């Protein structure tokens, strides 16, 4: 496979928007093209991530409308990808693979989601459609419920008092809100305390509202180019050095919910391709849809031993200001930056690329050279990891 690089990235603010999902992606896409110093005519394909638009926007076949609105050539294919919360990352990975294999030279990818017009009940119902419709959804399981079951299993498996574990989970939220406070694009730029989390409304025991990421609107776009071409276009392309994606079936056949096997497989592939160890990662944007999810992720990605990651945020080890190893979610993560489902993986890439380019302002991790993206789709059925290097 030939070298693949990221040449331009852009995202909208993540918050409640009045614009449509397509309009949001067009805003991000046009900015990403400008930053890449290319015109719409230079794009060979559009790989657009969108998860819930069929319900929230009442829009299927979204990619061609985004394509024409951005002004891409008629001969250019436009595809919509869906992989639950990993939607954008899967779109990006497919773009990387087709550029790497020489099918295309430059692909515009990323994702968009517009969900805030739905009520919490409707949004919860639609999100839950990513569980198995016949064997899981009939129980009324929700996504907070999935991760709540993982949290209970974690406490039982490692013999940690649940109250103590909840305190450490709350510290993950405190940390990611502290990071998001510094991010002008973040949905919730508000510092919170451990007590705020522990006093918030119960969603799915033991997860409370402030253990959960918000429903956000937003879009993010990335321009993926062959490295040869990238060097002619911009001064500082960011290189893709490892890509991994793994798949499994429904949640209940995964047995141990504290070990997300798809992530372990995907990250191993990505690390091997990149020729690095987990300890080489300077910054990581990972899938903290719930506070327990970040704890599972830092263990599954190899930053901590299994059963030992739960104190990381409490100890300050994953903070921007004094990280022990990798800085975890400098953008604020899904928790604070926000989680427009179909756009999340692309927003993770925006943050990592800007960090590796030393463009992150008050959130900048000094000397960051290697960044990792980690996105989970559904109830652990899809996992994606991408390693980037400057």
């Amino acid at each position, binding site marked *: 496979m030939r070298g693949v690089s990221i040449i331009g990235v852009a995202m909208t603010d993540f918050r409640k928007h009045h614009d449509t999902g397509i309009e949001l992606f067009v805003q991000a896409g046009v900015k990403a093209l400008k930053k890449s110093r290319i015109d719409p005519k230079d794009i060979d394909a559009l790989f657009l991530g969108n998860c819930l638009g069929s319900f929230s926007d009442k829009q299927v076949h979204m990619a061609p409308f985004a394509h024409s609105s951005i002004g891409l050539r008629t001969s250019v294919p436009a595809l919509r990808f869906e992989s639950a919360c990993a939607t954008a990352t899967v779109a990006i990975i497919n773009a990387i693979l087709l550029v790497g294999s020489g099918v295309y030279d430059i692909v515009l990818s990323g994702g968009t989601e517009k969900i805030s017009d739905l009520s919490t009940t409707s949004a919860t119902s639609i999100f839950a459609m990513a569980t198995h419709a016949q064997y899981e959804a009939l129980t009324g399981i929700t996504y907070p419920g999935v991760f*709540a079951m993982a949290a*209970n299993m974690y406490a*039982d498996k490692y013999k940690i008092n649940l109250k103590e574990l909840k305190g450490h989970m709350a510290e993950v939220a405190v940390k990611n809100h502290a990071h998001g406070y510094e991010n002008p694009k973040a949905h919730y730029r508000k510092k919170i305390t451990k007590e705020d989390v522990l006093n918030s409304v119960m969603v799915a025991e033991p997860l409370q509202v402030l253990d959960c990421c918000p429903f956000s609107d937003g879009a993010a776009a990335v321009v993926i180019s062959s490295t040869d071409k990238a060097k002619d276009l911009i001064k500082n392309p960011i290189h893709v050095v490892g890509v991994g994606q793994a798949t499994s079936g429904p949640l209940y*056949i995964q*047995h141990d919910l504290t070990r997300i096997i798809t992530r372990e497989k995907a990250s191993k592939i990505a690390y091997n391709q990149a020729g690095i160890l987990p300890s080489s990662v300077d910054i990581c944007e990972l899938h903290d849809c719930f506070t327990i999810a970040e704890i599972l992720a830092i263990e599954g990605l190899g930053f901590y031993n299994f059963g030992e990651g739960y104190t990381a945020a409490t100890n300050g080890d994953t903070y921007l200001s004094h990280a022990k190893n990798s800085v975890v979610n400098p953008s604020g993560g899904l928790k604070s930056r926000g989680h427009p489902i179909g756009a999340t993986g692309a927003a993770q890439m925006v943050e990592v690329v800007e960090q590796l380019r030393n463009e992150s302002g008050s959130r900048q991790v000094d000397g960051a050279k290697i960044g990792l993206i980690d996105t989970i789709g559904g109830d652990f059925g899809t996992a994606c990891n991408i390693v980037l290097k400057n």
Partner: protein
Amino acid sequence: MKKLLKFSEYQENIKKGRLLGLLCQECNICMLPSQSSCYMCGNQNLKVKNLKKRGIITTFTVIHIAPAGFKAPYIVAIVRTVDNAYVMGNIIDLNLDKTNIKLIGRNVKIGFNRIIQPNNPYKNIFSLVFTV
């Protein structure tokens, strides 16, 4: 390869009081739902098995914010049956104030509950319920 134990067949057997799963003849793992190969070893030599309706809770949660069509609070759990199949269902007949982490590892009996959801495309179907 014929796909064994389709959803309709699984549901028809529930109406007769039977919980059917698939047993891998190679690695002895029991599984749901219908599939053509074992998810553990990939072998296609699977046999339909009438599962014992008992098991232990491996994890659970109490849902307080429910999707449309469900009335919170209620308990969702995963149970490992005595035949070593993992299934998801609702714990019923338990005072919600009495739920705590010690539920994990408790024995349950497995039963069936008819689903009444006007918008569900599958009519006259059942989900699993657990009694402690």
